[in-house]
Structures are given as C-alpha cells and as structure tokens.
C-alpha cells in the first residue's frame, strides 16, 4: 500500500497511535507524531512510498517527533526528535517539526547503517551510471540535484551516498530533496513539475523546504547503481559551465573526510573508498545557470567512463 492511498484522517490516526511503517530505500521506519505539520509533510512528500500499519512489520528505526511538554504548547512551543526512546538532539521550535524529522532520519542512517560506507553527498543516476556530488554547504549541490532529478536523472539521494561495502554499488535512498533559501524559488521557477512543501523559516539553515522525489525514483528505490563519476559542483554567479578533471588522490581525501563512518570502518573504509575512486571519473564542476548545468550532465551521461 502506498502512503497516498491513506486518507488524511487515517494517516493522522496512525501517526498519533502506534505509528506508521514506511519503507525508504533499504530501511524501514516506524514514525509517530501528534504534530499536524509532520502528517502534512509526509502526505505531501512520501505519497509514493510503501506504508503499512506499524504493528504489521519490523522496523529498523523507531522515531517520533512530538512536543516535549504540554505546557510549552503555549509558551514558545517546541518539538523533540526521539529515536528508540532516546533524544539525540535539543528540541527545536514547533514550526520546524517536519525538517526535524528529515534531519533526524538522516542522523539515524548515518549513525547506524555501517554495512555501507556513507558519504555526505548527493547522488543521481542516468544511463546506468551514478554521479556522486559531494560539496560543502553553499556550493549549490542541492539545487543542482533538484534540477537534475526534475530533468530525467534518477534521485538516489540528496544527502547520503550509501556505498555497499560488498559490491561497491550505490543503494538508493530517494527521500525528499532539502532546499534552502534561494534554492526554493530557483527550483520553483525551473520546473512546473516541482512540488515543494511548506517552507519552515528561521531554522539553523535559514528557510528550508523539501522537494517531493520523482515517482520513478521511488519506484526504483531498490535498484542499486554503479558509481561512474565523482563531481564537485560549485555555483558561482556568472561562472561558465565547466567540467575540469580533478586529482583522484585529493578526491579520495575529501570523500574520506566527508564520510560519516570512514573512521569507524577502518581499513575496510579505505578499501571501499579507493575502489570507488578507481572506478569513477573525477571532476570539479563550476556553473551559474541550472539549465546549462543539466545539459552538461546529460552530455556526460552519454559517455560514461566505461564507454572508453
């Protein structure tokens, strides 16, 4: 059953009661919340995802987003993210309940899914090759990711690149794409197909909203992809669209430093990371116009590294 087949009333009832079971990529979640904006966010963004009644299935992560104290409902109301009954974060303003759920889910995966080497990077796929997009905040990574997935690329993840330690393949986790500040109107203007949920203002990252993942990306969320490129995007006003080959050794170092669990995995992290860099072409990518950037990526996808 897909989440969109649940009525709003049923979804609210489930979330307030024993929770809703939700499948996202290789992980299953049990989500509970009494906060209406969490139900609205899930209904807006997770419609294509498989759901079940919480008591019907095992879940990897049991999470909830709820107000910590009923008294705070009137005085600067807040919400807590809970994982297996623990509170890993400080509470956030009540208005930020939905982004807190998304951030909390990222934390659950990055702290626990050590069957993968997990790199802090977006990843998209076309013609059978995955492009990993690691970059520091403010580099235009999420904007580019959103532009690509609205132009026919498959969303594997906008935040967590999951590299299978046995196969080297990348496992999809096509949850909503987080957009911040100016990226929100840019993506709204870029595509009429973009559905972006209600923004949350004044978060630690500014104004935040989420782009609904494409239906096809969700349908193929159990289909891993081989890595083909590691591309470091950098948005600069007025910059020409340009791909420049990049040092593989330095690419490896950046990936290792930006992996959530590289240190935890020890020598195996080194093995998986070097194999990844071995099989990919590495580039720096500068751009200022999103349509030109998408066209450059499309040309790249026509000539994957294994095509010689």
């Amino acid at each position, binding site marked *: 059953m897909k989440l969109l087949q649940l009525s709003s009333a049923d979804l609210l009832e489930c979330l307030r009661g024993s929770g809703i079971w939700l499948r996202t990529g290789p992980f299953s979640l049990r989500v509970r919340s009494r906060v209406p904006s969490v139900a609205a966010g899930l209904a807006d963004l997770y419609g294509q995802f498989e759901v079940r009644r919480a008591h019907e299935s095992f879940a990897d992560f049991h999470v909830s987003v709820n107000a910590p104290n009923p008294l705070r409902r009137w005085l600067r109301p807040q919400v807590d993210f809970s994982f297996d009954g623990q509170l890993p974060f400080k509470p956030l303003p009540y208005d930020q309940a939905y982004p807190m759920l998304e951030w909390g889910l990222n934390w659950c995966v990055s702290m626990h899914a050590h069957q993968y080497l997990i790199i802090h990077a977006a990843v998209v796929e076309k013609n059978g090759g995955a492009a990993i997009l690691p970059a520091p905040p403010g580099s235009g990574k999420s904007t580019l990711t959103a532009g690509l997935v609205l132009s026919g690329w498959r969303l594997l993840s906008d935040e967590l690149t999951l590299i299978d330690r046995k196969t080297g393949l990348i496992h999809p986790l096509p949850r909503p794409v987080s957009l911040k500040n100016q990226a929100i109107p840019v993506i709204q203007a870029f595509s009429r197909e973009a559905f972006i949920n209600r923004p949350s203002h004044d978060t630690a990252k500014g104004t935040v909203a989420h782009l609904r993942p494409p239906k096809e990306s969700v349908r193929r969320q159990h289909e891993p992809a081989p890595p083909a490129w590691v591309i470091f995007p950098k948005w600069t006003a007025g910059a020409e669209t340009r791909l420049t080959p990049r*040092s*593989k050794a330095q690419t490896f*170092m950046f990936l290792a430093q930006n992996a959530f669990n*590289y240190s935890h995995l*020890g020598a195996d992290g*080194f093995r998986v990371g*070097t194999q990844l860099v071995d099989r990919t072409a590495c580039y720096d990518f500068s751009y200022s116009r999103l349509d030109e950037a998408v066209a450059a990526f499309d040309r790249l996808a026509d000539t994957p590294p294994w095509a010689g």
Partner: protein
Amino acid sequence: MRFQLKEYGAEAVAFDTASGDTHYLAPLALALFQLYREFPGLSSDGARHMLAQRHTIEPGLPLATQVDETLDGLCRIGLIRPE
C-alpha cells in the same frame, strides 16, 4: 603491514592501520616514500641526489629544503624511519 598505499599517478593516499589515519602523499612525498622503500638507509643528501637524477631536476637549495621538510613529514607520520 602497517601502511596500505594506493597510488593515483604521481600522487597517493596511505592508510595507517595502527592509528586509523589516512594521509595524502603529494608527488614529492610519494617519490621519497618509493625511494626509501628501495633504499631504506638512505641519507637525506643521498635522497636529494637520487631524486635529482631520476627526475632531472637541480639538486639546489629549493629542492633541499623541500626534501628535508617532506622527509620530516613522512617520518612524523611513520611512513619512513629516520636513520
């Protein structure tokens, strides 16, 4: 073996199984590391001369300074042992 090395052209990355640290080796560091693997007891003067011969560069002051600094760095992270 304490170190796992992966070369990418003139550069490399090295994983230290003892500390769990990963190091980037720029071309000069990789060249020196390879030299000391071949000739473990090499002096820094000897390293400079062999580098100059192999890579047809002048064994003058800039190279001497760079080699000394790089050797210090390689010793510090344990990739080569000081004589």
